[in-house]
């Protein structure tokens, strides 16, 4: 289940120890912006030890490595890949080639450590104008890519515009990311809402992202996690409807009917697929649920 992903600074023992209790579906252990150049080595070793010794229950682990134009990214991967994080997040990805470089290096490490190929997936962070323009190429660059993620802060700097709460300046980029991700068949995450104290604003921003088609949203504050989860979870009405759809289909199959309708609306393949996704989410949120029968 991928609704929320929460950034955790990579050099902070107390937060690393508690990353999995903050309610996020995924945590991003950050070796990039949250760590000063002088502490890159320290954070890398600390995060590696945390992956080795701590038992992160019930959430995906993502490591944000340093960008490929720095001296750190390979060192980062050397330490963390053998410990099988779910995903690696390379930042400032602007083209398919950036993905390939990281993927190939991960492949080398996977081979070296006798890991199954493609154990470690990728979630490229797209935060440049060029990256947005190349979003589809990035999303479909490699089978390792499981999702793409929009970074609004760096992007607006690159676009030479002001980052606002309303987010009109990233509207095009958001839509483009969603289209690219869906075209490539991967998940897509929205940029964090940066006003930590504005919970109402967070809800509105998350709801807007959901309405555009985002899978989920990243957060820089644990206080935003609950809101993001709530917004990106199916509502009870959606869950009920999904069960109704599946039940109608089941009965129709029994009766050998081809065309089925529910509440006067024809149930076609996309509606069934949507219902299936909602029920998957429900299972992930509440565990296996008893059938309505």
């Amino acid at each position, binding site marked *: 289940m991928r609704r929320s992903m929460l950034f955790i600074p990579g050099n902070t023992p107390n937060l690393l120890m508690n990353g999995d209790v903050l309610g996020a579906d995924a945590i991003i252990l950050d070796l990039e912006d949250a760590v000063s150049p002088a502490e890159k080595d*320290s954070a890398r070793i600390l995060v590696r030890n945390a992956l080795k010794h701590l038992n992160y229950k019930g959430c995906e682990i993502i490591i944000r490595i340093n960008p490929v134009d720095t001296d750190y990214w390979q060192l980062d991967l050397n330490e963390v890949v053998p410990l099988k994080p779910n995903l690696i997040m390379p930042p400032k990805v602007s083209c398919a080639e950036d993905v390939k470089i990281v993927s190939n290096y991960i492949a080398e490490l996977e081979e070296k450590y006798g890991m199954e190929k493609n154990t470690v997936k990728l979630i490229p962070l797209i935060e440049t104008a060029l990256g947005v323009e190349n979003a589809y190429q990035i999303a479909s660059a490699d089978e390792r890519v499981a999702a793409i993620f929009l970074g609004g802060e760096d992007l607006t700097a690159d676009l030479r515009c002001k980052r606002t709460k309303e987010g009109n300046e990233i509207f095009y980029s958001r839509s483009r990311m969603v289209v690219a991700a869906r075209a490539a068949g991967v998940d897509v995450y929205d940029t964090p809402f940066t006003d930590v104290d504005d919970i109402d604003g967070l809800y509105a921003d998350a709801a807007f992202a959901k309405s555009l088609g985002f899978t989920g949203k990243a957060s820089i504050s644990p206080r935003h996690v609950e809101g993001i989860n709530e917004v990106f979870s199916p509502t009870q009405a959606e869950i009920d409807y999904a069960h109704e759809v599946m039940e109608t289909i089941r009965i129709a199959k029994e009766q050998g009917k081809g065309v089925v309708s529910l509440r006067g609306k024809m149930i076609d393949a996309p509606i069934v697929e949507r219902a299936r996704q909602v029920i998957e989410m429900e299972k992930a949120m509440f565990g296996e649920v008893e059938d309505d029968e």
Partner: protein
Amino acid sequence: MKITSTAVAGTLESSDVYVKVEPCDALEISIESVVYNQFAEEIEASVKNVLNEMGVESGKISINDKGAIDCVIQARVETAIKRAGGNK
């Protein structure tokens, strides 16, 4: 690996540990900890564990622990030693 210069790693925040390593002919380990009474042996074992793994036989290792768990202590000691002596 040899400790050829003085280096530090970690912080004095709660749940972290501040490690200082210095060149020394003998091996000297000093431990100060807010949980000394409860975990002195574990802390020392963690430090020695890293020294053994990295083949460090001499040096002055000063630990100022603010209640770090073992994997944090090991990370900070490893970082300090790497900073003090180049590569493994």
